[in-house]
């Protein structure tokens, strides 16, 4: 069952703009963990995603035809190389320059996780690297913990967006950092992309309803029983969430509100 064809646009969706570039889809995809490059490619196409991240370390940057890269590139795809694997700001800057040279893009997902187990980002090294990379002309999208102050600091040094995590990467636990994400979204002047922990389409919808600008999904799609159908499910979930946000959600309340207020007589 397909509710929308791949090309059909939902007309009352607004566009996402990052660093002056327009995106029709608010779903960003990661490229790890897929059972084959072909499967990944099909998932990307069906998802309608226009921003796809890939780890520099996975690419054969000296080869003309890299299988993985060939599975990602498409006319409407912005390639977002990431620095996964680096442990310090210094290594990140080095890797970023390597990526820029090899892939001819100044877009960069900055990831510095010295902890290889939970892949939690290092806030100090990330801020340091972001500042330097912005000066070097990169469009920096940093992956960080859901820390509102850090997000403002990154905005101040000139990152194009912030990418706070919903819960630990690959955990599929959803928006465990919700209270912090609400603050980040409320006070940010740059797009907020919820990066890690999105495990189900409902989590993505929730992020959109909260007013997040985009979400990045990888494990939930790559490891699904049917990755292609799951990619489509996420596409629809994002559209639903964004539409709901734009429509103005009703406030949640614990008490029942009488449709004829008890004190209405006072103004009669």
């Amino acid at each position: 069952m397909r509710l929308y064809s791949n090309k059909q646009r939902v007309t009352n969706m607004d566009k996402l703009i990052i660093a002056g570039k327009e995106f029709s889809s608010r779903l960003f995809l990661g490229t790890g963990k897929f059972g084959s490059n072909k499967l990944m490619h099909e998932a990307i196409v069906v998802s309608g995603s226009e921003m796809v991240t890939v780890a520099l370390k996975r690419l054969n940057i000296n080869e003309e035809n890299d299988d993985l890269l060939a599975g990602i590139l498409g006319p409407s795809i912005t390639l977002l190389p990431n620095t996964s694997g680096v442990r310090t700001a210094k290594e990140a800057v080095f890797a970023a320059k390597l990526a820029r040279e090899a892939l001819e893009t100044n877009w960069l997902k900055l990831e510095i996780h010295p902890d290889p187990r939970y892949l939690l980002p290092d806030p100090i090294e990330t801020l340091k690297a972001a500042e330097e990379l912005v000066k070097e002309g990169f469009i920096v999208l940093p992956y960080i913990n859901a820390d509102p102050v850090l997000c403002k600091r990154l905005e101040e040094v000139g990152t194009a967006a912030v990418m706070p995590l919903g819960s630990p990467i690959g955990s599929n636990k959803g928006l465990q950092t919700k209270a912090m994400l609400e603050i980040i979204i409320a006070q940010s002047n740059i797009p907020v992309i919820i990066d890690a922990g999105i495990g189900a389409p409902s989590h993505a919808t929730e992020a959109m309803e909260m007013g997040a600008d985009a979400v990045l999904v990888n494990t939930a799609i790559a490891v699904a029983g049917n990755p292609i159908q799951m990619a489509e499910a996420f596409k629809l979930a994002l559209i639903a969430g964004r539409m709901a946000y734009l429509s103005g959600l009703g406030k949640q309340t614990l008490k029942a509100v009488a449709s004829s207020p008890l004190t209405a007589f006072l103004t009669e």
Partner: protein
Amino acid sequence: MDSFENIFNDYTWEEISDNIYSKTAFDVEKALINQGKNTLEDFAALLSPAAAPFLEELAAQSHEITQKRFGHTVQMYIPMYLSNECQNICTYCGFSLDNKILRTTLTDKQILDEVAAIKQYGYDHILLVSGEAHKTVGTDYFVNAIRLIKPYFSNISMEVQPLAQEEYEILASEGVYSVLVYQETYRKENYKEYHPKGKKSNFLYRLDTPERLGRAEIHKIGLGVLLGLEDWRVDSWFCALHLDYLRRKYWKTKYSISFPRLRPAVGLPAPDSHITDKELVQLICAYRLFDENIELSLSTRESAKFRDNVISLGITSISAGSKTDPGGYASDEHALEQFEIDDSRTPFEVADAIRNKGYEPVWKDWEMLKK
């Protein structure tokens, strides 16, 4: 400074053995509920004979956790033997000093010939292996070999004799990503029986090696025990104790576990196999439940059938097409192997088998920032 030796000395082999063999079905069920958050007590239960009837449940959990963390991918690497010179006597090893085999250490030309042969298969991650002959095959030799090899590979690992922290620092700065050093057995009282002569007979120096690697900030440390020497259950528990100590202290380091099962080698009596296929699956799955993030590696010592089936049960990294003699890829004369391999398929055949299982063989997953 605290060290693993202090922690290790708090336990006796007999006490741990008694603990493992007294575990009941109840303990196993409790460990299975703790999915992915296993303690060392849980690990003891999952290793125990009491867990054997739960193998299918154990495998199902291990499969699920592995897939979530590593996806449908398998990392590919290939060993390259630099030398079979060795000053140690190890009762189980083909390279043992008292084993009358021809000794070879690769020259620069031979190294490059091996590289050319290996690159035909598409490998990008390489594991350098040697015996222990400090005078001829020491840090200077390794640095030279690494510099020769570096232009052709993104990821270099080493499985060589234990070295000093300063030597590991040199190797790390040359681009070495990981170092594997197996304790062989944690049964200190019997260690010397298997390693009667040479530097390797020093149990505590070997025990302290991962610590030196941690301090040298090597990216990944490989641990393991030789399956077939002592009781694999007790040895594996001590290995997990070691891992638990290291992963808390050196939190920036990745860890991997290998499962070397004793294989026949030229000039040595056939080993008693102390661990069955079923038990090895139990061990692999127990490690996965103990540590969601650890890399689990399996070599060509194991059969094609076994390897094809355990990639979906927890193994995340395998070698293929391996030769265990120095010069074995470029030359047809094979008289000096460390051990016989079982899975003799080519890397292409193994990669096809992986794809047929719905997994993607990953040849490159690292970028050396200082070539």
